[in-house]
C-alpha cells in the first residue's frame, strides 16, 4: 500500500509494477506515475490540459 500524493489515501498496487506506469487513485481519481518500484513511489502524473470546449 502506497499513499496517494493528492489525497493521502492508500493506493492498492499490483505486484509487477513498472516505472513510468500510470495508475489512478481509486479515492480521488488523480493520475499517478510510478517513479520507483522498490518500494513504490508515486508522483502526480503530468496533467493533460483539458479543453472544456469553451
Amino acid at each position, binding site marked *: 500500500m502506497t499513499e496517494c500524493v*493528492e*489525497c*493521502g*489515501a492508500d493506493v492498492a498496487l499490483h505486484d509487477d509494477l513498472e516505472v513510468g506506469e500510470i495508475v489512478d*487513485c481509486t479515492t*480521488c*481519481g488523480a493520475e499517478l506515475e510510478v517513479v520507483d518500484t522498490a518500494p513504490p513511489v508515486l508522483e502526480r502524473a503530468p496533467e*493533460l490540459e483539458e479543453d472544456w470546449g469553451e
Partner: protein
Amino acid sequence: MGVNSLDDVGTDAETVTASIIGGSGFTGGELLRLLASHPSIELVEVTSRSKAGKSVGSVHPPLRGTDLRFTEPADLESVDVLFAATPHGVSMGQIDEFFDVADTVVDLSADFRLEREAQYDEWYDGHDAPEYLEKSEYALPEINRENLEGADLIAGGGCNATATILGLYPLFEHDILDGDEQIVVDVKVGSSEGGAGGGEASSHPERSGVVRPYAPTGHRHEAEIEQFLGTSVSFTCHAVDMIRGASATSHVFPSGPVSKGDLWQAYRGEYEDEPFVRMAAGGSGVYRYPEPKAIAGTNMAEVGFELDPSNKRVVVFSAIDNMMKGSAGQAVHAANIALGLEETAGLEFTGLHPVGAP
C-alpha cells in the same frame, strides 16, 4: 412470470415487520422497492387512498407481477416499524395513530426535522404536535448516527438539505469554515422532487429541457441546513432536465488559507469509513466531480471540491439521488441503524453505467 421478489421474502424469526403509508407516491414507491427486497424486513402493508385495492405494480411498473395490493391507511395492522411518505402536514396530524401501529416511526416529510416549534412557525405554517419535536432524530447517519440507535421517531432529511449538508459538514467539523463566511448554495434538481402529483409546470412539454429557477430565495430546506451547520446559507434551486438527482454546488470563502491537502484531510476524515459517501474531486476521464448520473438509483452520495485560489474560494460539489439518499434510502439506512440491523442492508445496488437522465 416475473421475478416476484416480494413474494419470496422469508419470514424467519429475526425479521422485522414494516408498513408504508403513502406507497403510491414517488418516495413511497422507493420504500416499497427497497423494503420488498430487504433481507431483514418483511413488508406487510402499503397504503394508498386513491389506489386502494390495486396491485402495487399497476402504479410502479417494475413491481408488476407481485401480489401485493394497496390498502387504506385506516386498515393498518400492527408492525414493528411504520414508514410515512406523505406530504408535509399529514404526519404531524396523525403521529399518535402512527405510534398506535408501530413502536418505531420513520417519517419522510419535513414534519419532524426541525427541533423547535418556532422554526415551524417561521418556515412552515406552525406545528400540530410540537411535543414530538425533541424526541425525533434526523435520519442522516453521517451527522447523527449515534442518536439513531434505538430511536423511536426518525425524521428523513430534505433532499436538497441532505446534499448541501453532506457537502459542507466536513468544512465545519475541520474548522475550515466557522460560520461567519458567506456561503452560496446553488442547487439543481430533477422532476421527481415534486412528487407524483403532476400539474402544468411539471408537464413534459413545459418541464423538459429546463434550467428553471424555482425557489430562488427562501427555500424551506434552509432551516434544516442552518440547524445542522449552525449558519445560514444563501440558497437557490433550479429545476433541470433529469428525473432523479439533487446536485448542490456550494461556493465558500474560508477566511484563512486552505490547501487541497487540508480539504482532503477534512473530507477523508469525515467520510472514509462511511458506506454511502464517496469522493470525486478531479482525476481523469468523463466523470471527475460528483454528479447525479454516477449515483442514480443508489443510496450513495458523491462529494468533492475544487480550489479557486484567485478568488480564495472553495467550490464544493455534492450529488445524491433525491429518491434514495435524499429520502427513501436515507430512511431505510436510518431504520437499519435504529433497529440494529446491518447498516447497508437493502441498499447495496451500485448503479448503472451508462444511464440517461436518470
